[in-house]
Structures are given as C-alpha cells and as structure tokens.
C-alpha cells in the first residue's frame, strides 16, 4: 500500500486518508545512570488494516521499544520519554489521556509477547486470563458469555479440548500451546491492530511454522493490521507485506517485502542478507559477515550510525562520519549517503553474486 507517501512529505489533512496506524517522528529515550539511551529516534511508518508490517533488526535496535510505545506501555512507571505522533484510527495516542490509551489497549490494539510463559500470570488459569481480557472491554458481558467466548477463542487458535484446557495454568501448556493461548488472549476483542513481538523466537521451527500459519490465517479472517517484529529475515519474508529494517534505534530501510529482499538498498541490509546461509540457495564457500558489532545506543557513532561497520563508508568523503542520513526514496526508502546509482552498482557488483 501507500507506505511511500509517508516519506516526509506532508499528507493532506483530511482524516479519511490517514492509514490505520501511522507513526510519525517517534522518539523514545530512556534516562539511565549511564546516560540517555536513544532507543528509538525519528521513526515514521504506517500500516493499514489487512496488511502485515515486518520489523527486523539486530538485538537492541529498538524494535520492542517501538511496539511498546504504540501500546502506550511506556506511560506507567517507566523512565521513558516518548515524543512524536502515533495515530491509530485517526486518534493521536501520544497526547491522549492514559484512560483513552488504556481503553484501546487490548481492544483495538493488542500484543503478543516473545516469552509466553513469563508473559502469562502463573497464578491464574489461562482461561480466566482470557476472560479477564474480554471483560475489561466488554464490561456488560456476563461471566458465562465471557467464558464461552474464551473457549471459542482457544478453539480458534487450535488448542485441543479447549473446555478442559480453559482451567489449566500456563505452566501446564507446552511452548507452542502457550503462544497459541497468548494469541487467543490478544485476539479476544477482535483487535484491528495486532503487534507480535518475536512471537516465535522461543519456539522450535516446527512449532514456529504452526504459529506463523495461525497468525496468517487469523489475519485473513479478522482483516487486522499486523506488525511482526523479529530478527529472523525468513519469518519476515513469510508473512510481511512491507518491511522495516532498524539499526541503532533508527529505521534505515523501508519498503515492500519483495523489494527489500530482492533489491535491498542499505549496506546493512546487504550485510544481513549476505551473512545468512540459506536453504533455498546453493551452498557458498564462505559467508559474508558484517564486520564489527552493534553500536551502543548511549553513544551512537557520529554521522551514519552504521559507518564503523560499513565497507563503503569512505565513498562519500566525510559525510558518513559527520552527517546523519535521512530516510530517502519513495516506495522503497533507505537512509544512506550513497546515491541510488552507487548503490545499484555496488549491489550488482559486490552483493548480488553472493546471495
């Protein structure tokens, strides 16, 4: 969809044209003893209903922080400072009251976490936790209705004998089952935005396949907007319509999935793709790793945060070292000082043959 139109140019003010979820210049900082952590800076993106946005990036690149910011979970008891705009269904969330955001949470927007065991309360049955989620947003529903609804949801996500499992506790479930139950809980109020933060990282491949399948099916059924956060490019390729690549708290590449995978624009994305062995390609003698290691968010490298690891950092004189690149390009944007032509040339010459 029209993700490209976001790239900085002002949109027409009429509300109808706004994507379902739109993030503008999101900035999240944490004040810590060691200094200010710039966990997310200047992030802008959008998702529409029925679409899936994949966010990839290394550990610590700000993926989870972004998702928590959308849900407004940095508001309570946190040292976080959030600025920018978050529009959900034409409502601005950064400036909204706590109560407004709380009302949306679990209702219009909901979230699946990485580790379902620790994300579920150990002392309450899985069923009661789902019932609770339902009743916050449907206060009029009777206990029985809520229960029926919860069992229904459990069945929908593929939990066998849902009536019996309703009364079980999270620790009695297997890893895959737990994640299914988490999903049931997230979906119980038919959210129109679902954020999945590494929903399969803790799971085995065979179970991961089941869960991804489930998410895909459910999205088809509910038509919600989905944000899929992961560090596994394979998972993104499986699910996402659009992809965002984050590095050092910033979006460094953004575009439709096929474009990002087939014609990646940013050297970091090249590195990512080049460094992973792939089952769908012929064997390579050697992998092409990205040298160095990820940056500290307290002490980001000057200029382009990627420059210490970028093989092409010197090609633009000093710019990489001094000037922070902005996300440029339309449909498929990248934050890189190299000119599109240079990139095309380098990609063809250095990268494509090795993929």
């Amino acid at each position, binding site marked *: 969809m029209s993700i490209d139109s976001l790239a900085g140019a002002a949109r027409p003010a009429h509300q109808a044209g706004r994507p379902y979820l739109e993030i503008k210049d999101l900035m999240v900082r944490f004040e810590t003893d060691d200094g200010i952590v710039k966990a997310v800076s200047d992030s802008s993106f959008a998702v529409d209903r029925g679409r899936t946005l994949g966010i990839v990036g*290394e550990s610590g690149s700000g993926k989870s922080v972004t998702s928590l910011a959308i849900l407004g979970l940095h508001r309570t008891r946190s040292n976080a400072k959030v600025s920018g705009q978050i529009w959900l269904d034409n409502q601005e969330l950064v400036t909204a009251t706590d109560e407004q955001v709380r009302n949306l949470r679990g209702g219009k927007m909901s979230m699946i976490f990485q580790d379902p065991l620790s994300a579920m309360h150990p002392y309450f049955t899985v069923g009661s936790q789902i019932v609770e989620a339902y009743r916050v947003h449907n206060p009029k529903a009777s206990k029985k209705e809520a229960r029926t609804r919860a069992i229904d949801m459990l069945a929908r996500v593929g939990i066998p004998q849902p009536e019996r499992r309703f009364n079980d506790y999270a620790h009695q479930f297997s890893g895959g089952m737990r994640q299914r139950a988490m999903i049931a809980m997230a979906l119980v109020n038919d959210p129109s935005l679902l954020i999945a933060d590494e929903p399969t990282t803790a799971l085995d*491949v065979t179970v991961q*396949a089941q869960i991804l399948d489930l998410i895909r*099916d459910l999205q088809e059924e509910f038509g919600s907007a989905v944000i899929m956060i992961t*560090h596994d490019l394979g998972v993104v390729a*499986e699910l996402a319509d659009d992809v965002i690549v984050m590095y050092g708290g910033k979006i460094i590449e953004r575009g439709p*999935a096929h474009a990002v995978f087939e014609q990646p624009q940013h050297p970091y994305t090249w590195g*990512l793709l080049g460094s992973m062995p*792939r*089952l769908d390609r012929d064997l390579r003698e050697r992998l092409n790793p990205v040298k160095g290691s990820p940056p500290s968010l307290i002490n980001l490298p000057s200029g382009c945060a990627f420059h210490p690891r970028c093989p092409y950092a010197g090609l633009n004189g000093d710019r990489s070292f001094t000037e922070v690149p902005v996300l440029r390009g339309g449909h498929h944007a990248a934050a890189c000082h190299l000119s599109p032509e240079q990139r095309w040339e380098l990609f063809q010459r250095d990268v494509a043959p090795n993929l």
Partner: protein
Amino acid sequence: MSENLLEVTGLQKHFPITKGLFKRQVGAVRAVDGIDLAVRAGETLGVVGESGCGKSTAGRLFTRILEPTGGRITFEGRDVSHLSTAALRPFRRDVQMIFQDPYSSLNPRHTVGSIISAPLQIQKIPTPQGTKKAVQELLELVGLNPEHYNRYPHEFSGGQRQRIGIARALALRPKLIVADEPVSALDVSIQAQVVNLLDDLQSEFDLTYVFIAHDLSVVRHISDRVAVMYLGKVVEIAERDALYASPRHPYTVALMSAVPVPDPSRRDRAQRNRVLLTGDVPSPINPPSGCRFRTRCWKAQEICATEEPPLVPRAGDPASHQTACHFPVVEGEAVQGRSPAGASA
C-alpha cells in the same frame, strides 16, 4: 574418508528424577536413549533437532562432561566411557567443547588471560615462551586484540566472547571440538563471523567438529555429514547433500519444510509444500513406544507403535545414508499438505 576419531554405540544418558526426603528415584529423563554414530577425522558432523531432543546431552557425553548411563564411547579406539576424572586428562586435551551461551560460558570474574590460560594450567602444558605469549597468540588467532589480555568478559560483545570461548577450546590444540549451538545466541550479522572463523580454524588445524545446532541452514553450510535427532535418538544420518536433497525420515522432511525462507517471492510455493506437524515433542520421561515420531507422523501405522525401526540404509540409499523409519519418504512423494488451523492429534 579417513578412519573414525570418535565412535559411540548404544549411547544412553538417563537423568534420574528424584522425590522426597530420601531422594527416591521415581523416573528418569531419557535425554539420550541409544545412539550410534561415528565421527570421522577431519569432518564436520552436524547434529540438528528440536529443543530438548538431547543434542546438548549427546555433546556432553562425547566430551565426557557427563558419564553415560549405558553404551560405549571410544576415542581413537580407546574406550573412555567410564574413565575417572584423572584418567580422562589426556582425552581432555584431544576433545574440547564450545558452548552456546557466550555470557554464561565465561567466568565473569576471570580475565580473558586467565580464562584462556586455564586449560594450559589445568593440563600443565609447558609454554616455553610464557603463558601470556601463548594466550596472546590464541587471541590473535581468533581475531581478537592481544592487548585485551587483562580485560574481563563483560567488556566484550557477544561475538567477541564467543571468540574467547573458541580460543579457550583451541588452547590445547584438540583433535575434536564439539560445538554446542555456538552461534544460536548471536545476531545474524555476527553469526557469520563466527561461522567463518570456525571454518578457517578447521582448515588451519585439521580439526574435526561435531556441530550442534537447531538452525538447519547453518548446519548445511558448515557440515559434511548431518545427523537428525528426535527425542533422544538419531532418526536419520547422511552426507550433507544427500540429506538436504532427499530427506528420508518424515521428521527430517517436516523439519526442513518448516524453515522459513527469506524470499517473499517463494512464499506461496513454500507454503503449499509445507509439512505442518501437529502437536509438540513428547516428554522424554515417557517416550512413545516403537517409533518415537509416530505420534506426530502422518505416515504412522500400527507397526510403528510396536516395533522400533532400526537406523539402517533404506532402499536405494547409499550405506552412508541411514534412516530409522518403517516408511521412509520417497523422492517426489506427495507429503501431507497444510493442516487446517485447529486440527489436533
């Protein structure tokens, strides 16, 4: 290829489950339950399987960190299955291990220098040019700055720590290195650095690897042969290319098809061909009778419940390709398609 460096037969490890004041044994986790394999000198044997299938336990048995409950381990023809700590010393020089978690595998209170020199000290290896020099050489070898000799692990990033672990394993110049998921905890961009390093070291020092991982693509990249484990058993073992080209065990097939491919254009095709297993791995405390995979296998028949299939070459396969299955998958066979959401076993 050359002769076998390490051979295991009928290897078993059962962890007792105890209860109560008097530690009565009430059962056992059959983490490794009878595996036979051989590691040839100079090769890399990949071991894959789902979480909890006993890969790490197997690795620890190979390095004799654990003592097997049953079966035999021979290294260069010598039976090391039940040797005492003292008698194991020479063996320790030849077999080393690299661990999964670069954070917990290095003692946070020791400097890099003392971590890497520990094997030299424990094994009392003379270092003519001095321990420090030896350590610094090793640091250089794994691509770290030799000046970091006096630093502590927390001052390094994950990838660098893994290099320290590798340097420690290399210190004794072993013949065999068992690497237990050495890259699983690393980010993709770093993972490749370590894989390449392992590659380089193998050729430089003539190392033999047992490479344990759950990531099939990494295993494919690095291994010469691959063993697939399921619930404490090896279900299939073959030369790498043979295995990836024509997996015979339904579990291997399912495992491979479940790997997400980073290519959106192949998404639909991949989905159509995907084998979706239902359910989870059963508990190793109470494994299913007969073929252990039968509870999740779409081809399972009665015999699978009663008779355990041996690990042997199946029809049309070379001797090196062994499968433990009554009904191995034939190439081109239509496998079970997508299962609808909510289907259950």
